[in-house]
């Protein structure tokens, strides 16, 4: 009897925790434009044609992971190698590498600051500047680092659906990407 009550309490607590942390991402406003990268490899990576700007829904992928970072953020600095490791984990998997893309947006970071961060940590995926905090304000000034998971849904709404949006440390990169893949509902 005693252990049954304990189990019920634990089950209830876990599901409450999960429900709270799952959140509702319908109000995550990602309706901004980013500049098409000048670098041809990065354009190819995102599946973008030449042009001035693009929206997240135009990225050629099934799933996009957006990292909101800052070169001034100690956690972003400390976890940069781990974020790279997450990218490498996806790149090393033929199925995932075809369907998942990463981008980073530097909240309040100028192009100079974003480039310096990219060079310092040899970040392999495209990074974009949000020097005037325009995107950051649109995202309700989330803390950094902040990760957003999107399913790309061409022709539906904005062309994407947010399934994950959370601030804080990423932790183990393999566990994190595995969790995002599980939450996405995509079959790899």
């Amino acid at each position: 009897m005693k252990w049954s009550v304990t189990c019920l309490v634990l089950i209830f607590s876990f599901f409450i925790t999960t429900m709270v942390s799952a959140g509702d991402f319908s109000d995550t406003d990602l309706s901004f434009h980013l500049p098409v990268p000048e670098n041809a490899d990065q354009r190819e990576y995102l599946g973008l044609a030449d042009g001035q700007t693009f929206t997240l829904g135009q990225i050629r992928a099934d799933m996009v992971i957006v990292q909101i970072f800052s070169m001034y953020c100690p956690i972003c600095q400390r976890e940069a190698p781990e974020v790279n490791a997450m990218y490498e984990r996806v790149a090393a998997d033929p199925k995932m590498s075809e369907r998942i893309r990463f981008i980073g947006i530097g909240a309040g970071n100028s192009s100079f600051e974003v480039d310096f961060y990219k060079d310092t940590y040899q970040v392999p995926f495209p990074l974009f500047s949000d020097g005037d905090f325009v995107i950051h304000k649109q995202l309700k000034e989330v803390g950094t680092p902040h990760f957003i998971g999107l399913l790309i849904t061409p022709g539906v709404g904005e062309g994407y659906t947010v399934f994950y949006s959370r601030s804080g440390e990423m932790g183990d990169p393999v566990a994190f990407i595995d969790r995002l893949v599980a939450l996405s509902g995509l079959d790899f």
Partner: protein
Amino acid sequence: MQAVKTLFVGSLLVLFIVGPLWASSSAFNTLYAYPELKPVDSVLRVTVGQAAPDFSLPAVSGKQVRLSDFQGKKMVMLTFIPAAWTPVCSDQWPGYNLAKPLFDKFDTTVIGISVDNIPTLYTWTRQMGDLWFEVVSDFWPHGKTSQDYGVLRSDGMADRAVIIIDKTGVIRYTHVGDINVRPELGMIIKALEQIHSRGPSE
């Protein structure tokens, strides 16, 4: 049956403990956000070309830092910040920490100056990791160095200012920006590059 119970309870405990870790927060869990402050509330008392007012202030490292000790050795960038444990300030020095190679390139050291006392600065800067530069306290006499440079605000905090001093001890660059905005790194590095390429003042 006991083994099943143990396994079940153990699994739930693991799930319960691991779950919340995904939501862990940023380096600074507790910050005090002032409402929008008057952008600049001081009048600079130093100009480019004059000798930088000397100072000797206690540092978080336990040392006493004297500006004139750097003469003939390094250029110095003074970075005055308003207050510890506030959002913009907390997001400024960690960037200079990362940018050490850029400061090294131009033979420059950084001195962070705040009117907060040493215990506050120590506790706050520990959240930033291991800073490579000295952080000094202008707490007592309150804000004297900030006052000497003309960056002390009427509320007792310092304005957000950057002062670059060459190896001869002469001020070569001043920037007192909006207290609510972090100065852009590219602007600072460009100034260092120009001063470094022109060499010391006559």
